[in-house]
């Protein structure tokens, strides 16, 4: 990467402006961590990524957490595969989860009582990977001339079609899916325990991340990056642009196929609902949060997203996570140190004042108790506005306060990003934070399943606006 070593002499082939931008970047602690990660030898990085997964089962004795661990590993595999298309080649593959589904259904087709076959996984998984990669190649083929935007539409439509076929065709057994899929069997030995499945997924992770690392270091990997940065220049350097794109697309699909072939036997059944748009956007969020293009980043992103989604499932954890993230974000983003403290203090006082006024004016506004059971929710009951009867029996909010304040919160938060003056930003942050707490207690906490996805969508937009390179990705510095 670096041609001329040493800070004193000018670096050959590096523009002065680019160099100064890199120097400015090097001052932030996050960037220094990134550079340290980049410089570390590959074997060490692999060890550092795989070791936490390897020791995870030693500390865990709940079946639920083991299941979450397996899911996380499958998500990591999915994110690694999507990273090939999105991060390295720069293609928007919106049909990605269809390939995951194809892998899963193919496994069901070679190892289930319904199919009447039981292939050894050591044979089935590589074959499925190849078959899915070929299907990816075929899907990418028609849009080869004007890949990019057209590819996005064709792949999105492909996903829709895949779901239509799964739900309506007879061979896929419709929405009921295929049940009783046989467990993985390696050389005659069945893997039935959770631990066993976990280690199969872990081994697949180590193999695939190593393969992808080597691929990225290879001639092909360099060509992908070149064409992502500038397609025209790459073509002028005689790179076969279309073939490279299709290859990247197919490799990504193949990795998704492997993930599917592990997912199907682990779950024991496959349903069309397993491969929908929600999964697609979740995997995108993982890749983007971690940093498209970085294997370490994508792995970390997948773990972080899946862990947060699991934590948000439960209302009592969710509040801790929500308020914790707000406080940490304030501390990290507002400098110097007294600013976040002032904002938090002002928010607490503002909340008590509003609560007091509301109690005097209309007691029904504060009579309710929040949906959460955590200590923090009980504490907050006497701080946020909670009308009596905030939710109906089926969890749907009845109160106008939740809905109105939700829309008001979106408007206020967006408006706040337009404020230029630092002082007014801080002042405006106080009611916005209080509004967020009210919305959280009134509306979001009652529907944790939906709230997770609302937050994920908002996170994608905010990330793209403020840190498109994600946690571990590198921002490209361009000479304008």
């Amino acid at each position: 990467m670096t041609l001329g070593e040493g800070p004193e002499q000018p670096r050959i082939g590096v523009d002065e402006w680019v160099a100064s931008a890199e120097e400015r970047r090097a001052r932030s602690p996050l960037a220094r961590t990134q550079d340290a990660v980049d410089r570390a030898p590959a074997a060490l990085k692999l060890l550092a990524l795989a070791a936490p997964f390897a020791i995870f089962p030693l500390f865990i004795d709940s079946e639920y957490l083991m299941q979450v661990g397996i899911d996380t590993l499958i998500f990591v595999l999915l994110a690694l595969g999507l990273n090939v298309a999105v991060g390295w080649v720069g293609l928007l593959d919106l049909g990605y989860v269809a390939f995951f589904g194809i892998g899963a259904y193919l496994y069901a087709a070679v190892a289930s009582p319904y199919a009447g076959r039981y292939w050894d996984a050591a044979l089935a998984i590589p074959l499925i990977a190849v078959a899915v990669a070929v299907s990816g190649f075929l899907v990418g083929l028609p849009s080869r001339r004007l890949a990019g935007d057209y590819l996005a539409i064709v792949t999105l439509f492909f996903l829709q079609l895949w779901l239509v076929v799964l739900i309506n065709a007879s061979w896929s057994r419709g929405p009921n899916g295929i049940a009783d899929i046989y467990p993985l069997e390696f050389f005659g030995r069945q893997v039935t325990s959770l631990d066993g499945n976990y280690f199969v997924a872990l081994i697949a992770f180590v193999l695939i991340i190593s393969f992808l690392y080597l691929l990225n270091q290879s001639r092909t990997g360099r060509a992908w990056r070149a064409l992502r940065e500038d397609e025209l220049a790459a073509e002028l350097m005689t790179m076969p642009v279309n073939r490279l794109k299709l290859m990247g697309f197919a490799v990504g699909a193949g990795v998704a196929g492997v993930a599917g072939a592990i997912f199907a036997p682990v779950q024991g059944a496959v349903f069309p609902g397993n491969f929908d748009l929600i999964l697609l956007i979740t995997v995108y969020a993982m890749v983007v949060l971690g940093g498209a293009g970085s294997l370490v980043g994508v792995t970390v992103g997948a773990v972080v997203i899946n862990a947060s989604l699991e934590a948000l499932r439960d209302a009592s954890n969710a509040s801790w996570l929500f308020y914790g993230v707000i406080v940490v974000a304030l501390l990290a983003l507002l400098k110097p140190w007294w600013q976040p403290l002032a904002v938090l203090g002002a928010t607490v006082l503002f909340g008590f004042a509003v609560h007091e006024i509301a109690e005097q004016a209309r007691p029904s506004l504060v009579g309710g108790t929040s949906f959460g059971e955590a200590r923090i929710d009980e504490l907050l009951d006497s701080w946020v506005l909670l009308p009596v009867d905030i939710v109906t029996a089926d969890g749907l909010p009845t109160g106008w306060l939740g809905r109105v304040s939700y829309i008001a919160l979106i408007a206020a938060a967006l408006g706040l990003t337009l404020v230029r003056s630092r002082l007014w930003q801080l002042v405006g942050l106080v009611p916005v934070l209080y509004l967020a707490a009210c919305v959280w207690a009134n509306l979001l906490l009652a529907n944790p399943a939906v709230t997770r996805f609302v937050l994920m969508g908002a996170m994608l937009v905010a990330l793209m606006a403020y840190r498109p390179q994600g946690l571990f990705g590198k921002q490209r510095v361009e000479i304008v």
Partner: protein
Amino acid sequence: MDWDKLVQLLVSGLTLGSVYALVALGFSMVYGILKLLNLAHGDVLMVGAFIGWGVIGWLGGAQDPKVAVWILIVLMLMAAMAGCGFLGVAIERFAYRPLRRAPRIAPLISALGVSFFLQNSVLLLFGSDFRSYETFDLVEPEVGISWGPLTVWIIRLVVIGSAFAMMAGLWLLVTRTKLGKAMRATAFDREAAAMMGIDVDKVIVKTFFIGSALAGAAGVLVGLVFGQINHFMGFNYGLKGFTAAVVGGIGSIPGAMFGGLFIGISEALSVGYIEDFTRGRLGSAFSDLVVFLILIVFMIVRPQGIFGKPEVKKV
């Protein structure tokens, strides 16, 4: 040959197609100016459908509306257009404008985020049940224009008529007004347009407003004709709208209109005939397969679409 069935299918294809055309127009206009696939466009339609539903509820419900039916429909359209127009402007301002100079994939991912956010916000606010416009209570299914044995429901005519009126209005706006000229100039070459004194940012905001307003109107029309709306409906209409825009020629306004009608009629015909053609092997749910095949054929044979010009790369 069953002519009644064919004519019925053509009418329903025309209805569906005029909705697709409205979606494709907004999508195509934005693409023409920003070279950006607005993947959240379908969800703007969904929000429009919910605004229309809110207006019905607010004015006393479909059984017993407080105003005359035609005023109610006009009010629904106006409310949805205004609401979605401002929603579109907000999406542009907060999700796309910060990314003008970012790599091309960044705004697309941002658009995915917006789409997901809108879907789940509506899910959060209104739940996952289908909501009904109860149009049959508003206008009886027998009311319509009869032609031989055939009766075309008046609501279908309203949908087709208002869609064509809006398309004609848009066509006049783009070809006859100063704003239209500015839009065409910006689409042709954004930098040159800026140098000629056109405020490109304003043009982009107005384009988003108009495109999203059309999507909002389309949402209300969908609700009127099909009755049922839910938080996920935007995906299908967005997808078909994109397909229509690509088939017609992305960035071209007559292309989007023609593409929308073409896709709508193809879909209606394949819903009606796919079972006969495949001798019952494929049900009407597979009509999407036909539309997908049309898209693939266009990708291979004429990727620039019917009205599009082939893309020339400049170095």
